């Protein structure tokens, strides 16, 4: 019986080279991912940058002059900064290099865009009569809406709704998560289906009902309606968070003598803080941007909100000052972006739970 000689002595495998190749391949694929994501992120980011540049430089139209110049300075600076960031190992030297690049970019930016910048578009902040500059004939006794009252109205609506949504959905979420009450699957299914209710188109019945209940034309009515609309999603999220809290914690607290309510308040609730925060933020932003219900349910009171104010500056049957619009837009979007930047860490931790393992 002859057996083919097994190739015992193989050429020694060059593990170093293999590892290096794998590392290189991984680096390349990561770099490719970064590049792809950056290019993909541009369509999202550039329009917002455009909004900001027009707010500070536009005359009556939305020109892209300042935008392209800004991009021409910022993009190379960013690329340079990332290369430098990766290349230089030493902390101090890296920081100095980055500062240098940043400073140079800023100076260059000032030079190329400086002459176009002005604050005229922001006049609505201190002078509500925005038509004055356009037509020269200002109103006698008529009040142009003030952006600050709109701002505080929006704040009031968004804040009240946020508080209400958090409280109601936390309570409901806890109950659904823990208690197998009869009709629970139906309730959950119902929640999901409620989402299918075209709330916008139930406006007229809601309007009439608010009138009958006596809540029509009040901010409270609007807040209640918007809260109800956020609830299905909020309850699902809170349920998910409560599902993730181990039963043991609660059990041990109760065996230690705490009542159910105390266990809930002091033991379980802190665990779902993240969920509550996420819900709060979504609710606030929803209330901040609300337009349709405010428009429909507020009949005769002059309770303008930021969304109405912006809409008013945009829609002019005869001609629009887009530069003014962009300034108002930036003013309107700023709180959202600020809030969102500081809390987005929590938002991305949202889960809808539900499944075991």
């Amino acid at each position, binding site marked *: 019986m002859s057996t083919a000689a097994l190739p015992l002595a193989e050429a020694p495998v060059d593990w170093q080279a293999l590892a290096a190749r794998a590392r290189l391949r991984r680096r390349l694929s990561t770099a490719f*991912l970064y590049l792809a*994501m950056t290019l993909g*992120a541009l369509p999202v*980011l*550039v*329009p*917002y940058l*455009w*909004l900001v540049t027009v707010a500070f430089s536009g005359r009556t*139209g*939305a020109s*892209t002059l300042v935008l392209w110049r800004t991009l021409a300075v910022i993009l190379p600076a960013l690329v340079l900064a990332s290369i430098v960031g990766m290349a230089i190992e030493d902390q101090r030297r890296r920081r100095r290099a980055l500062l240098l690049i940043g400073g140079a970019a800023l100076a260059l930016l000032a030079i190329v865009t400086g002459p176009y910048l002005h604050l005229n578009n922001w006049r609505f902040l201190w002078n509500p009569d925005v038509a004055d500059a356009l037509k020269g004939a200002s109103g006698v006794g008529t009040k142009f809406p003030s952006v600050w009252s709109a701002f505080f109205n929006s704040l009031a609506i968004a804040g009240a709704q946020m508080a209400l949504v958090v*409280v*109601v*959905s936390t*309570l*409901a979420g806890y109950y*659904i998560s*823990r*208690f*197998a*009450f009869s009709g629970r*699957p139906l309730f*959950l*299914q119902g929640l*999901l*289906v*409620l*989402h*299918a*209710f*075209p*709330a*916008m*188109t*139930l*406006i*007229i*019945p809601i309007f*009439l*009902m608010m009138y009958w209940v006596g809540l029509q034309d009040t901010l409270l009515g609007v807040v*209640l309606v918007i*809260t*109800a609309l956020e*609830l299905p999603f909020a309850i699902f999220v809170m349920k998910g968070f409560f599902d993730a809290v181990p039963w043991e914690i609660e059990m041990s607290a109760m065996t230690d003598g705490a009542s159910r309510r105390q266990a809930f308040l002091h033991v379980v609730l802190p665990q779902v803080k993240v969920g509550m925060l996420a819900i709060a933020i979504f609710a606030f932003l929803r209330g901040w941007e609300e*337009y*349709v219900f405010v428009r429909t349910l507020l009949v005769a009171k002059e309770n303008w909100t930021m*969304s109405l104010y912006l809409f008013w500056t945009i829609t002019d049957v005869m001609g629009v000052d887009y530069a003014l*619009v962009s300034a108002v837009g930036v003013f*309107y*979007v700023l709180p959202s*972006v600020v809030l*969102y930047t500081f809390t*987005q860490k929590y938002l*991305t931790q*949202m*889960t*809808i739970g*539900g*499944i075991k393992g």
Partner: protein
Amino acid sequence: MALFLGPACLLLFLCFLAPVVVDVLLAFTDMGRNLRITRFTTENVERLLTGDRRLPGVLAVTGIYVLGTLAIFNLTFALVLALVTTAMPTSAGAFFRAVWLLPRMSPSVVYALLWGWVVAPTDYGLLNQTLQALGLPPIDLKSDAPVALIIVANGFIGASFGMIIFTSAIRSIPEHLFWAAQVDGASRLAIVRHVTLPAIRWQISFVTIYQALSLLVSFEYIWLITDGGPFYDTTVYALYVYQRAFNNGQYAYGAALALGLVLIGITAALILWRLMDMRALLQRPRIEVT
């Protein structure tokens, strides 16, 4: 129980269920611009079922829009985003997720305004300026490809929802599964197919149903960007209802149309619920209530 579920039930009843009942009643009246009801009649329902020549087209557009946005953006693109951003180091991934959440976080009026600027048909439009810089002819998306426009515009917003849910789901997959797969020689793609996707099956189902319903009833962005498009090209059902009711003051007919939409939505939800076997995926709660 009353304390916990009570407020939620009250609000949901007041603002969802009761209006639906009122809506059903309204559909059988003749309420017009002056908000007065003078008689009960079935003419609105009749018109809805037989006399409205716009309706088939509207339904077709709605179908294309919902399926298109759902398939391309709310599911696929969201999955891609979630997978890619979790494959990156945490801070980079967080940054890109933050970028893609931005459309959802900004007020709808501002978002629509920006889209309007981007696709403006003349030289003002950002899109056209980019195209011209690349040597391509300018295009007018609002007139030539309005349905694609609304799918993309809504898709950017919709993708972020799925992205968040999927990200947290992927993060909670036990790490050892990945190690095991890699040791077995699985490529990145194979890992995704055999490890990641099955593990997040529930979340995918949930997002599908939830977003399908969302798309069915949402019209705010379409309204703000194309207002139903050139002629009726991008008038989805929900927008059609709103226009009939509020642009024309035909509140009773709008109520009838809204009723139709509610029925479609409930049917779709029930079918999807069955298809995705949601019931089996619901976690059993801890406490029995007798």
